[in-house]
């Protein structure tokens, strides 16, 4: 999987996030550094509560950064007002962990897709063109627009919802996609489909994917580089092969050794 790295799109320097103050103060992310490149698939791996989602939200600009600088395309990111935020979000999008809470259940599926078309400057397009775009996006994720139109999100399955989320990204064509455990709530079969679709999309529009997971095996399967996260810190990072085949940090070793343990339980002779 090793390949030439593109230019840097996102670079974090000493990024820190503190929630609360006084007794409730928690340092969710502590002084992390990272450098993500164009067209690269990056995995952030860590246990529950290690701060993965917090990093994702900071990168997305959904929550503020307590300390540190984030460089976007080599420039310090500026999202100080609504217009700049909107501009930034044309470049960076997300697929969230729980498909059931990612949708506004009061809006039809059409509204969701139309929002994406409007956001990328397709407001003036004719209904026919919009219809074609939505149909194309749906067929990219193996869904039929004709079957979805005028439906509400709760009428879909979890897997279908996540695929629709990818269709949304397909329409928006952002530079960076953050996928926060997009497959943790769907069955194994849908999981493979969704991952394949994400990778296909990456190939098509040369998108950077930041893939957040607690499954180090999955990270190895999809990513070019891996960041291992423990208690708000990156304990190890580098190309996927290096980190997973030759782990240095004790925490990484433990994560890797946890994987075969699951199968080991079936081996009665080791008990």
């Amino acid at each position, binding site marked *: 999987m090793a390949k030439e790295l593109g230019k840097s799109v996102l670079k974090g320097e000493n990024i820190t996030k503190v929630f609360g103050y006084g007794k409730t103060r928690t340092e969710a992310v502590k002084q992390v550094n990272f450098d993500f490149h164009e067209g690269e698939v990056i995995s952030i791996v860590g246990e529950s509560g290690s701060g993965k989602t917090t990093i994702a*939200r900071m990168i*997305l600009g*959904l929550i503020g950064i307590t300390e540190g600088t984030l460089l976007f395309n080599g420039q310090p990111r500026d999202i100080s007002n*609504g217009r700049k*935020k*909107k501009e930034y*979000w*044309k470049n960076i*999008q*997300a697929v*969230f*962990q*729980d498909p059931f*809470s*990612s*949708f*506004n*259940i*009061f*809006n039809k599926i059409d509204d969701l897709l139309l*929002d*994406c078309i409007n*956001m990328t400057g397709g407001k003036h397009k004719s209904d026919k063109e919009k219809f074609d775009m939505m149909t194309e996006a749906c067929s990219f994720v193996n869904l039929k627009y004709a079957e979805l139109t005028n439906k509400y999100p709760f009428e879909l399955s979890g897997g279908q919802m996540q695929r629709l989320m990818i269709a949304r990204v397909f329409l928006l064509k952002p530079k960076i996609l953050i996928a926060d455990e997009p497959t943790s709530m769907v069955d194994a079969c849908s999981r493979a489909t969704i991952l394949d679709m994400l990778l296909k999309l990456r190939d098509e529009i040369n998108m950077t994917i930041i893939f957040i997971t607690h499954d180090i095996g999955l990270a190895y399967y999809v990513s070019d580089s891996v960041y291992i996260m423990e208690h708000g810190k990156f304990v190890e990072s580098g190309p996927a092969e290096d980190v997973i085949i030759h782990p240095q940090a004790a925490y990484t070793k433990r994560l890797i050794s946890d994987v075969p343990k699951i199968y080991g339980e079936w081996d009665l002779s080791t008990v």
Partner: protein
Amino acid sequence: MKHQLKQAFSSSKFVLGFVLFSIMLLLAIFYPIFSPFDPMEMVGSIFYPPGTYVSVSDTVQATYNGFNIDPSEAHLKAALSPENREKMKNWLVRFGGVNEADIDIEDTVALVDLWDAHYSSDNPQEGLLSSEKKSYSRLDKSLAKAKTGIKTALYTENSDGEMEESLIISDRDYVRVNDVANTVTLPLGADNFGADMLTKLTNSIRVSLQIGLVAGLIATLIGLTIGLLAGFLGGLVDNILTFLTNIFTVIPSFVILILIANSVGQAGRGPFVVAMIIGVTAWPWTARSVRSQVISLRNRDHVNLSKLSGHSLPHIILNDILPYVASYVVMALILQVSSGILAEAQLSMLGLGPSTTTTTTLGMMMNWAQQYTAHLSGAWWAFIPVILSVAIISFSLNLMNTGLDQIFNPQLRED
């Protein structure tokens, strides 16, 4: 929305509450329209009990079909208390020379006959104080009165311009109600102003419902806005708004209510002003609960996704937050309407309700019933139906709220 409405009507509690409320509402809207009286019109006498009211002036014009009943025995019976009978017996034995065994104090006619035969105020009555003598003489007079009754002479002006006695009416005279030209049916009697209770009650229900609705809408609107902003924006805005809400919560709202109602003054307090006063003091708990709901929604991914789709703050609040709290807000509104009606009743009981001479409210009716001591004169119809109406309205609204609660929070549903 249609779906939720259908769901609401599948709850028996909601349906029962809805039916009760609709009955009260329909009664309040239609009865005053079809009632022959104005709610403030004096049609009967003060605290006239439920039934047919016949006014004295109408009676006079009716023909007297002379009932030949001698009512004097009944009147004498009523006029003579057991103590008086005992007193009469004592006198007859001591001064009238009657044998004690010949006196039966239960036999009113015989007793009075004996009395008439023997009593005379000229009797020396030795041994009696002058005050006791006087009390016997008074008893004698009241007996004479009870025997004859009170007669009223009616004079009318004749063609020569002279007053002429046209009719003598005794308080023992009777007329047939059918012969009286104007009779008035008062299903719930008359109140302290002699107005028809049922017309007045239904009219009051209508006004009270209006006050409750306006107060509830105002309270819900303020509470919803503050709750949405505080919950969604967080940070400093949240701190300020929560502080404000807490201030209103710790100061008992009823005290604020009384203070505002007092400072507005008697003249300025129309029903609408009272509704507003109630509304602006009742919002804190709506604000609190909306805020906590919004906080739990704020971090939901669909809100994040909406932000990523470039939606503005008002758009997110209206489209991604409000629909999720809407069902809750409807339930809060129902409770606010109910407590608005109760608050009006409480305020009016304290004399701080609407000051108006053109309309009435349930609270004002209770206040009047209390001021005119209806409970002491046994005029239950002047306050029991009012209390029942308040209770039924508030019960039906609470029932609807509980029904909705079971639908929107299914874990409460027990089946």
